[in-house]
């Protein structure tokens, strides 16, 4: 029973959440799936969306926020970039240059780790083991696993993911994307 008007969740998102409801005997189990649905659409889960999710699921907003705050994955203050690149820094990648790769990418795009470019096209986050140690060092950029990434070739690989992300985006706006700085 939805008792308040929803401010951030669209009817489509609510329908997507409700479609999963028969899978679980308890609506609280829909918290993570719902947060993923919101995060996919909004690229973050702002507080008012948390309240919406709580209303849809019939939970106190504090419980949803409690769960959300545990998983660093969900940004809350502002959206992550249209491309979200996780750069692995765990042992296998670190042994093959993962840390240098992170440094190179951040300096080329002029952002700090966890930062987003001004145009919102890219967020770079250090990640713990991506489970692709056979392809170390690696980056997970949206749904693309970029394997055996040499620092010199990394920006080009990210740009290719950006092009795919732009193609998929529905608004089709042609914002000037932040380009990597040459020789940075």
């Amino acid at each position, binding site marked *: 029973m939805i008792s308040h008007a929803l401010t951030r969740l669209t009817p489509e998102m609510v329908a997507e959440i409700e479609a999963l409801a028969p899978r679980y005997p308890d609506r609280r189990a829909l918290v993570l799936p719902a947060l993923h649905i919101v995060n996919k659409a909004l690229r973050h889960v702002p507080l008012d969306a948390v309240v919406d999710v709580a209303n849809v699921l019939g939970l106190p907003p504090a419980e949803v926020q409690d769960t959300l705050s545990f998983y660093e994955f969900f940004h809350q203050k502002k959206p992550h970039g249209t491309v979200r690149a996780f750069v692995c820094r765990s042992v*296998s990648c670190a042994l093959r240059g993962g840390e240098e790769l992170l440094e190179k990418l951040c300096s080329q795009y002029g952002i700090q780790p966890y930062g987003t470019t001004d145009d919102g096209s890219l967020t770079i986050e250090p990640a713990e083991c991506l489970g692709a140690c056979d392809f170390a060092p690696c980056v997970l950029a949206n749904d693309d696993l970029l394997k055996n990434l040499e620092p010199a070739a990394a920006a080009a690989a990210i740009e290719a993911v950006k092009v795919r992300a732009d193609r998929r985006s529905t608004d089709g706006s042609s914002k000037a994307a932040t380009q990597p700085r040459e020789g940075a």
Partner: protein
Amino acid sequence: MPPFEPVLLEAIGTPDSHTLESYCSRGGYAPFEKLLAEQQPTDVIELVKSSGLRGRGGAGFPTGVKWGFLPKDHPGPIYLCVNADESEPGTFNNRILMEDDPHQVIEGTMISSYATRATTAYIYLRYEYPHAWDRLQAAIDEASAAGLLGSNIKGSGFSLDIYLHRGAAAYICGEETGLIESIEGKRAWPRIKPPFPAIEGLFRKPTVVNNIETMACVAQIARRGTDWFRSIGVPADPENPRDPGSYGPKLYCLSGHVEKPGCYEAPLGITLRQLIDEYGGGVWKGRKAKAAIPGGISMGLMTEAEFDTPLDFKGPGTVGCMGLGTGAVVVIDETVSIVDFLHNSCRFFAHESCGQCTPCREGTSWNQRILERIRAGKGRLKDLEILLENGNTMGMMPGSTICGLADGAAWPIKNAINKFRDEFEETIKRTNPEGWMVTDPVPALQIVGAH
């Protein structure tokens, strides 16, 4: 020794290995249908018990025995959770199984559900595996369309639904009760046991949590039988009635400083050296190895001199490692500083500690800060004692935490300092010639500055 013919990985690299057609052409799903038609769930539990299969997720608990803990004649529902939150650094065998042969995993899940009388199975898949998600979902859809999932499967009266549940990048969700809490929509704080999940687990119902590779092994045991499974690996020690042995094939993940990183299937008990030389093409760039992790970062290190240790459930423990873990071998060459290695390990655990138990939450982050200070040239010999004291007091073994994450965080510290103490001392003295001998407390601000 004749080359070992891979079984769990038999289809990897063949065209369309992820499809139902490919899987059925290899004899897939016939064992499930046969068990369903001819055997009782208790028979399947006995089958897996007698195979000697031990869980592949890290702890090595006998799978059939785990299933046997479920209450008899429970009115249900009983749940099966398949742990695909593979997050132990160095480990990727589950990913390969799910991406390239998902039906093998699904069939194992079906057989395990039948054995445990579970009518709903959740596969908890880590966020970082989007491709595995697509492949598993497609496999579930294919199996459903073929009448292998759903209600009253093949007229047997047995019903089963398998659902994927996506994680959100938290290592602790690989701990079985953390995983259960996470599915329930809460923060993934592990539960105090008992009650064990078999008695009170997901949604407070009896629950079994098994690893993806374990599911693949179950599928192969159903297809090839227990004699086949027991013919591979290291038999139980007849002198030790409590030794369950190390039977079956294992998927070893080889990464780090080797020529050919990859996931290789070998009988349990292959030595680390064989794995590196015969499968991995040797240490990279013609260098020498300094050490290797035998089974995920929390197991500690084996020195080069210990590389002839067999990688079965017992072997790594004989040389001061915690155990076989996930079978993920990470090779470290002679150029790597052990201080840097340990810093990487401590940073990982500081990031992934769930924060529930104080010794782990505080201990892991202090360990990281001490290592950072050492790397910044401000280390003291006394730091090694502090690290060891932290390592000896955090975890389930000293009894100060709820789950084993802290043990996994502490083991590499104790192990690395014991095995490479000279290198730690040399590094500290070389990088901090003025202050390495100081034993006064470090002023808090100075520590914050180094962070």
